[in-house]
């Protein structure tokens, strides 16, 4: 099979070396790729287009890759996405602002609280209200815990993809402890619908501080096990070091954010550089790598768990008292106890949940630092009770564009390590 590729030039000096110029992105439609099957191969041409996924277990859900290979070497590649597309942006236009978090929380299902947060922050920016301090700190607490659980999921799947199956069990075990805490606080292990416009759904339950502390105290030893199992291990380093290298200029050009950008040595973290919530009041370090390879991305995510633990400890010390949601009658339903004794409260409650609250006309873009990078929400209101347009800038969607650049020239077996290190969550890619 042959794909017309003007980007390969033969050096023509008997060395047999062919140099590639131009883009490693394979821009070929699926129909054209299928038609290639009938084209007879030219003598000596080893190139072929093969398909990987969407059911390949290492591709994190339903990512499909169209790969142009020469032997075992990846020449060009095209990520084909959309298998998980459920039209959540369209659905978001039908739901009220109070129902919105239920919808967006299902996008990036490994870090659902960030989706709720960015949606709520965008709604609050349009309403020009601010959540009370306790709500802000609860949000921060939950998001940092969620960052830890999301990075643990990465540690688990990254190990699994590379054949270190025990890492999967270690990561899953820790994440399970966290999900139990989430269940206690929010009522659900995932897809919490906990952070809502105006604050959070409920106050922290009794004993949350002890539970969180117990979790934090059990973590350092268990995280060190990753270091013992993986970080220094020669096989692990051989598989990751120098594989899938990206530089800062490429990252900026492609809009890549999060641990991928930081792995190239560029320190950019929205929590520090454009602080939202109360991140300007807590102390933490932004971790950067030096080589921009898979190993740096692994190490950054592992150590970001430790940084998040630092933040959580500060939050535990400084959690303010007060309301967990804004006492703005336009936005907040009355407390449950009032409904039993007051007809007006019942009507008020009914109106908020059937009609929703109206949001003044306008448009706003809000971004937060999710475990995968910049998670943004562009929201347009026409003055009604539903968002006129709700667009989520998924970090995985944009980060996935660097995949062909990371894989070009490498072996297919390294491709699995690379996909894993990009850490795409397909729910976030396809929305």
């Amino acid at each position, binding site marked *: 099979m042959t794909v017309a590729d003007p980007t390969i030039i033969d050096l023509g000096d008997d060395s047999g070396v062919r140099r590639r110029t131009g*883009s490693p*992105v394979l*821009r070929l*439609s*699926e*129909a054209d790729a299928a038609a290639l099957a009938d084209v007879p191969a030219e003598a000596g041409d080893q190139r072929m287009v093969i398909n990987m996924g969407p059911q390949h277990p290492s591709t994190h859900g339903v990512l499909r890759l169209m790969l142009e290979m020469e032997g075992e070497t990846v020449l060009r590649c095209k990520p084909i*996405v*959309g298998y998980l*597309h459920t*039209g959540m*942006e*369209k*659905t978001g236009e*039908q739901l009220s602002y109070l129902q919105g978090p239920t919808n967006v929380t299902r996008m990036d299902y490994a870090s659902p609280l960030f989706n709720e947060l960015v949606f709520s922050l965008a709604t609050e*920016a*349009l309403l*020009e209200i601010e959540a009370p301090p306790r709500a802000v700190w609860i949000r921060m607490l939950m998001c940092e815990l969620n960052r830890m659980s999301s990075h643990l999921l990465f540690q688990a799947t990254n190990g699994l993809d590379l054949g270190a199956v025990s890492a999967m069990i270690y990561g899953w075990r820790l994440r399970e402890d966290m999900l139990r805490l989430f269940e206690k606080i929010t009522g659900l292990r995932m897809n919490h619908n906990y952070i809502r416009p105006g604050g959070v759904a409920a106050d922290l339950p009794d004993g949350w501080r002890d539970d969180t502390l117990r979790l934090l105290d059990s973590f350092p030893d268990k995280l060190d096990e990753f270091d013992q199992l993986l970080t220094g291990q020669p096989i692990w380093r051989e598989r990751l070091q120098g594989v899938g290298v990206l530089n800062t200029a490429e990252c*900026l*050009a*492609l*809009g*890549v*954010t999060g641990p991928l950008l930081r792995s190239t040595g560029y320190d*950019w973290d929205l929590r520090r*550089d*454009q602080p939202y919530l109360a991140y300007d009041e807590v102390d933490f370090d932004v971790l950067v790598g030096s080589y921009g390879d898979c190993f740096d991305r692994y190490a950054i995510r592992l150590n970001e768990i430790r940084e998040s633990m630092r933040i959580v400890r500060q939050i535990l010390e400084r959690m303010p008292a007060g309301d967990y949601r804004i006492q703005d009658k336009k936005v907040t339903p009355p407390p449950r106890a009032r409904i039993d004794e007051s007809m007006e409260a019942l009507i008020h409650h009914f109106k908020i949940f059937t009609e929703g609250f109206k949001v003044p*006309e*306008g*448009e*706003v*873009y809000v*971004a937060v630092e999710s475990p995968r990078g*910049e998670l*943004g929400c*562009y929201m*347009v209101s*026409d003055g009604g009770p539903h968002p*006129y*347009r709700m*667009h989520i*800038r998924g970090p995985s*969607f*944009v980060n*996935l*564009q660097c995949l062909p650049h990371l894989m070009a020239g490498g072996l297919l077996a390294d491709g699995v390590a690379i996909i894993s290190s990009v850490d795409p969550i397909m729910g976030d890619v*396809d*929305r």
Partner: protein
Amino acid sequence: MTEEHVDGTDEGEGDDAPEVELAYGVPVAVSRGQRVLHPTRDQLLGVVEELRSDGYLVCVDLCGVDYSAHPGRSLPLGVVGERFEVVVNVLNHLDRDRVRLRVQVPEDDPTLPSLFDQYPGTEAMEREAYDMFGLTFDDHPDLSRILMPEDWVGYPLRKDFAVGSVPVQFKGAPEAR
């Protein structure tokens, strides 16, 4: 969409119409504390080039909006609303500053220049806008559907694309035994 709207002198604003506020030579507005530029399609590449030289090196987001169900939206003086808008968010890391560009795109000719040459990261985002709104980007390297299947007909995020219109086939009630 024509050039004459740009200078803000049309539409009979009265004798002493307030002056159009300009930045980068295009109308600028502030929305909830965020700076928004309103270039026309012809001005877009020039404005983006200037923004890039000012350090706005990253295009974080590009998306389409269909305003057909919201005709009376407020726009700064000198900008005439069209059915579609393409919204581009750019970020300056050094100044930690964001700027948003809102480009009006008319319904009868939904094309605008691609930002791929300036920001290669817009490739997937422009494909998404094409997929969801049917906006075409000139000089885009691979303008094809990205989230919907390749053979899909229609543009789902347009306001006239119905939701839940899949016919449900009901069977008759089971007969009494």
